[in-house]
C-alpha cells in the first residue's frame, strides 16, 4: 500500500515590531519554531529522521553546513537531509523533497525549519555580494541588492504591458488589509495607494512600500505519513501537487524580464500533479518580496494572462472580502520577512486549511496554492495543499 506524505504540524515564534519576542540566537529561534511545529503535530522530536534546512544564517562555518549543525543542536540523528537552498522558495522545494523521501520510505518524520535574526542583528544592507565569479559582472555597477533586479523586471513589465505603479500599489494596500487582521503582523496601520506612491523612491519604479520588510522570524513544518498522522491523532493536510524550477541567478541571465519563467514551470507541474484547475484554489499564498513579484507570479501561475496582472489586482480584488484571497497573513510586505520567507507561506496555508486563521480566516477554504520565489526572480517552488 502506497505511503502518503502529509503535513501534520506548523509552528513559528512570536514577533513584536518585527523582532523575536525574548530575542535569541538563530539556533535558539529555530529550535523554538521546531518544537512548536512538533507539538502541533503531537510527534516527539526523537521521531524526526529527516531534516530539511536552507541555512543562510549569515554565520561562516556553521551556517554553511546547515543540516548537520542544526541536527546536532536539536539532538537528533537524521537519516535524510536536504539543504537545498534556491532562495526564499527553498521551503516549497523542501515540502516536495520531503514528500518524495517519505513516500519512498527513506524517512518517516521530516522537519523543515528556518530562522533568521537579521533585524535584531542589523545584518541586512543594500550592498551586494562580493564581486566574484558570476557576480563580478553585476555588483561592480552598484545595483542595489536585491531590489534593483526586481526593479529592472518591473520597468520591463510596465514597458511591455502598460502596467502602472498604482497597480503595484494595489498589492501593497490589499496585503496591509490582511495584516490588520493578523495580530502577529509587523505593519498593521491602514495604507492607501497614495501612501505607497508617495513613499521613498528606492530603485525606480519600486518605492519603499513596494518592498518587503526586514524582520526576524522563524518557522517550521512537520511532515509524516498519513498512517503515522492517524496514529498520533495529528491534524493532516494533504500535499496534492508540487513543482520547482530555477532559471538564473544573475538578473542579467533571466530569460525574459517580464515573465516569471520559473513559476510557469513549477506551477504547471504542480497543477498537473494535483489534477485540478485554477477554479479549485480557494486561497493563494505567494511570495511577495516586492509588489512586482506578486504580479508576475499570478500571471506565471496562470491565474490571469501574461500582462493582465495589473488589471487582475486592481480594485482591491485580493483584499479581505475580495474574490481572490491572497497573502492572508499580511505577507512579506506587512507581516514579516526574515531574509527568506517561503516557510511562512506554508505555515499560513496550513492554518487557513485547518480553519485556525482567526479574524483573517477565508471561509470554507479547502484547497490552497503556495508559491515561493527566490533569488532575483530566479527560482520557483509551487505546492498545492488540501484539507480533503
Amino acid at each position, binding site marked *: 500500500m502506497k505511503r502518503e506524505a502529509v503535513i501534520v504540524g506548523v509552528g513559528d515564534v512570536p514577533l513584536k515590531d518585527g523582532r523575536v519576542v525574548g530575542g535569541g540566537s538563530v539556533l535558539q529561534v529555530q529550535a523554538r519554531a521546531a518544537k512548536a511545529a512538533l507539538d502541533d503535530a503531537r510527534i516527539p522530536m526523537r521521531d524526526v529522521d529527516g531534516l530539511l534546512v536552507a541555512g543562510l544564517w549569515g554565520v561562516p562555518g556553521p551556517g554553511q553546513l546547515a543540516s548537520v549543525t542544526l541536527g546536532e543542536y536539536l539532538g537528533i540523528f537524521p537519516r535524510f537531509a536536504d539543504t537545498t537552498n534556491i532562495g526564499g522558495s527553498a521551503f516549497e522545494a523542501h515540502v516536495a523533497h520531503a514528500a518524495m523521501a517519505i513516500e519512498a520510505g527513506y524517512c518517516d518524520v521530516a522537519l523543515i525549519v528556518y530562522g533568521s535574526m537579521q533585524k535584531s542583528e542589523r545584518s541586512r544592507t*543594500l550592498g551586494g555580494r562580493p564581486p566574484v565569479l558570476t557576480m563580478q559582472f553585476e555588483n561592480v555597477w*552598484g545595483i542595489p541588492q536585491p531590489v534593483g533586479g526586481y526593479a529592472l523586471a518591473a520597468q520591463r513589465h510596465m514597458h511591455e504591458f502598460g502596467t502602472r505603479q498604482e497597480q503595484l500599489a494595489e498589492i501593497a494596500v490589499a496585503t496591509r488589509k490582511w495584516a490588520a487582521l493578523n495580530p502577529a503582523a509587523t505593519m498593521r496601520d491602514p495604507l492607501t495607494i497614495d501612501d505607497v506612491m508617495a513613499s521613498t523612491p528606492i530603485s525606480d519604479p519600486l518605492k519603499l512600500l513596494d518592498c518587503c520588510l526586514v524582520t526576524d522570524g522563524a518557522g517550521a513544518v512537520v511532515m509524516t505519513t498519513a498512517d503515522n498522522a492517524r496514529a498520533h491523532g495529528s491534524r493532516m493536510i494533504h500535499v496534492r501537487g508540487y513543482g520547482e524550477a530555477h532559471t538564473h541567478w*544573475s538578473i542579467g541571465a533571466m530569460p525574459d524580464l517580464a515573465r516569471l519563467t520559473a513559476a510557469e514551470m513549477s506551477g504547471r507541474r504542480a497543477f498537473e500533479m494535483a489534477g485540478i484547475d485554477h477554479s479549485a484554489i480557494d486561497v493563494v499564498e505567494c511570495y511577495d518580496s516586492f509588489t512586482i513579484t506578486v504580479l508576475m507570479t499570478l500571471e506565471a501561475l496562470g491565474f490571469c494572462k501574461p500582462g493582465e496582472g495589473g488589471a487582475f489586482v486592481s480594485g482591491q480584488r485580493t483584499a479581505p472580502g475580495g474574490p481572490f484571497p491572497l497573502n492572508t497573513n499580511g505577507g512579506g510586505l506587512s507581516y514579516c520577512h526574515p531574509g527568506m520567507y517561503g516557510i511562512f507561506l506554508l505555515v499560513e496555508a496550513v492554518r487557513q486549511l485547518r480553519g485556525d486563521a482567526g479574524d483573517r480566516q477565508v471561509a470554507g477554504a479547502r484547497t490552497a496554492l503556495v508559491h515561493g520565489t527566490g533569488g532575483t526572480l530566479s527560482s520557483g517552488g509551487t505546492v498545492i495543499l488540501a484539507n480533503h
Partner: protein
Amino acid sequence: MTEAPRAASPAPAQPVAYEKPQPVVDPGTKPFWDAAREHRLSIPRCRACGQHHFYPRELCPHCHSDDLEWVDASGKGEIYSYTIARKPAGPVFAADVPYVIAMITLDEGPRMMSIIVTPDVEQVRIGDRVSVLYDDVTPELTLPKFSLDKA
C-alpha cells in the same frame, strides 16, 4: 554626550582611491577585463551555433558546445530595461545617486548590465540606443559603461 567627530583633514594631493567593488578577475573572465583595459568590448562567440553570449562561460549556454572564441563586439546596443537607483548600493555609491543601471541588449545579441552615463537620468527610456564608453577607474581596471546616442 560625546563630542561630534571632527571632519578629516584634507587628503594630500594624490589620485583619489577607487573604493567601489572591483571584479575579482578569474581565468574565465580575464580576457574580457583585459580587453576592456584596451578599450575593446570582447565577448565569447560560439563557433558551433554562431551565437554570442555574456558573461563569458566555458560552455556555450545556447548549445553547450565548448568551441568558443573571443570576438570584439560593436559596442552598440539598446536598453532592454533600466532602473534609477535612488538609494545607493552601500556608502561607496552614495555620491552617485541618482544613477542609472541598465540591462543592455548588445547588437550581437547578449544582454549586459552596465551604467548609463548621462547628465539627466530622467531622459533614459527602454529602447534607447546606446554606445559603449570606457571609464579607466584605476590603472588596472577599465569599466565599459554606456551613453545614450540621442544625447
